[in-house]
């Protein structure tokens, strides 16, 4: 069974309604190759991704830098150009929106950025930063803004002392809370979190992750949680997708993917994670070389160049994301998946 059909079938019967569907999404950028040359190359940052999020899901998107996970997140909020494919929010397309429609999407989908230092305008007070959404969408005026901002700030752990401070007076973790308040004040349905804790220390990370879990319950949110940190992903999400070179190579329930990884890349990824337990034997598979660039990638399986179990067919034919194994939700794009 292919993933698309699976998604479509699910819409009809399953428990929670589908909130977001990404269908065959391609995001290409063209870049100039070399200076002087007018020749352009195509970066296929996202190269045919399908996924669907049910209401209340925390969908973890893992992968290494350059795999397209950030671009995917940005495409959903309209910051990356969609070359081909569809993004549906509650069944309505949100690709290429402008004007009032873009405004409406902004109220439903919000993005939290990775770098807490560059995501807050350095010349604005917290009140201005968090209240900007209210102002933009005409939801409040004058002191109402300050009051609503304060209420939201209190929810993420600040008080009135912090209301008129500038961003430079805050630490990384505090800044991430401010970003969160800024996103939440519009009461979105879907929050895209792009590596929200990777710039933070572990003890601060724990506070933020807990806060995110609480807030998800409280505001009835759906998360698309993008991270390279497998530990964080495992803790936060109920379903995950593994990306490699613009492709979704494996997706399924978190426990299935972590306990029975089927794709060789997922297996390598899981074995690469250093364990804090000195007694855990490290039986890691070392990959040869660096990830290839997404500039004009070769045909066939994206992982073929580095795969330890590569076969001739892998270099010719790209595998489709199809169902393998026992769990109904577990899909892998591999010709020779590891199924036990």
């Amino acid at each position: 069974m292919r993933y698309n059909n699976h998604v479509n079938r699910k819409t009809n019967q399953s428990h929670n309604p589908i909130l977001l569907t990404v269908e065959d999404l391609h995001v290409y950028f063209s870049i100039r190759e070399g200076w002087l040359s007018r020749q352009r190359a195509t970066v296929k940052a996202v190269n045919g991704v399908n996924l669907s999020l049910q209401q209340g899901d925390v969908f973890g998107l893992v992968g290494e830098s350059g795999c397209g996970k950030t671009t995917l997140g940005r495409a959903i909020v309209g910051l990356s150009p969609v070359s081909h494919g569809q993004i549906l929010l509650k069944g309505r397309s949100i690709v290429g929106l402008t004007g009032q429609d873009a405004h409406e999407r902004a109220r439903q989908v919000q993005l939290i950025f990775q770098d807490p230092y560059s995501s807050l305008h350095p010349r604005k007070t917290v009140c201005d930063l968090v209240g900007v959404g209210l102002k933009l969408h005409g939801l409040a005026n004058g002191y109402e803004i300050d009051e609503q901002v304060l209420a939201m700030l209190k929810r993420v752990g600040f008080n009135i002392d912090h209301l008129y401070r500038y961003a430079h007076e805050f630490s990384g973790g505090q800044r991430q809370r401010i970003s969160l308040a800024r996103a939440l004040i519009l009461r979105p349905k879907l929050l895209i979190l792009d590596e929200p804790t990777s710039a933070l220390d572990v003890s601060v990370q724990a506070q933020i992750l807990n806060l995110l879990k609480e807030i998800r319950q409280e505001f009835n949110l759906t998360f698309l949680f993008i991270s390279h940190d497998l530990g964080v992903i495992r803790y936060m999400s109920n379903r995950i997708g593994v990306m490699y070179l613009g492709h979704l190579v494996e997706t399924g329930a978190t426990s299935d993917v972590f306990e029975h990884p089927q794709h060789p890349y997922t297996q390598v990824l899981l074995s690469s994670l250093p364990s804090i337990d000195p007694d855990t034997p490290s039986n890691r598979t070392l990959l040869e070389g660096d990830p290839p660039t997404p500039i004009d990638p070769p045909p066939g399986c994206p992982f073929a160049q580095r795969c330890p179990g590569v076969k001739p067919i892998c270099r010719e034919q790209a595998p489709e994301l199809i169902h393998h194994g026992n769990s109904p939700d577990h899909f892998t794009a591999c010709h020779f998946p590891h199924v036990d």
Partner: protein
Amino acid sequence: MNTETQIDKRLARNQRWKARQRYFKDSYTLWRRNHLMVVGTTIIILLLLIALSAPLLATHNPLDQILSDRLLPPTWEHFFGTDSLGRDIFSRVVHGARVTLTIALLVALISTPVGLIIGVLAGYFGGAVDEILMRLSDVFLAFPKLILAIAFAAALGPGVENAIIAIAVANWPSYARLARAETLAVRDNDYIQVIRSMGASNLRIMVGHITPMCLSSIIVRLSLDMGTIILTAAGLGFLGLGAQPPTPEWGLMVSDGRLYLVDQWWVSTLPGFAILIVVMGFNLMGDGIRDILDPHQRQS
């Protein structure tokens, strides 16, 4: 509920005030740390005070010609001596501060907004808009500022107003360049992306979020340029294209005295000194402003 927000309001006002106080206190500390900046600002404040209270400070009427008192050296009666028409140079320098400041401020008020708007537009939209606006500014940048100002002043005819316009026309392209560079650096920052993803319009992003980031470098550049503006104004005055006699303009005064430079040095030298000190004051201040406006300075 009602009383709660009432208290909030008062508290909020209090907090806002405190935040502002903290900001100014930090600015003051940064200012105090930079000794040259203190000197620069002192000079500029003195210049402002002198310009404001010129009629009180002046010992004579700057326009009164007493031909019997021509070319007197500095004495207690005439602090800076008198010029070839017997006018008191001290009084003329003091009144000249007004003229000089007016020219400098008006040039700043005309050229920076023009440069800022053009630069931000070019940087934000890029592509054809960028090409057209920047090629236009290249045409202006191809000539030395003084030559350009002379050409425009000559075309517009002599006079203070025309000199101001001429200098402003010669100056805006450098601000446009600067604003464009800053915009390019800021445009792709996450905080601009955030506001875009929230549905803000281009105009709003440019005015509310990009322009404030360009302002600090423009202000720094402007204060460093103030010297050149004053010198250009003086140069135009010297060539007879700027302020017209008998206006007490510093450049004009230097020009008037050039015939007597050997025997009556004070006629040119003392107004020249005034130019020197003011230009230095602006330059010293400009360097320091950069440090104060940089948010990163406040982190440490």
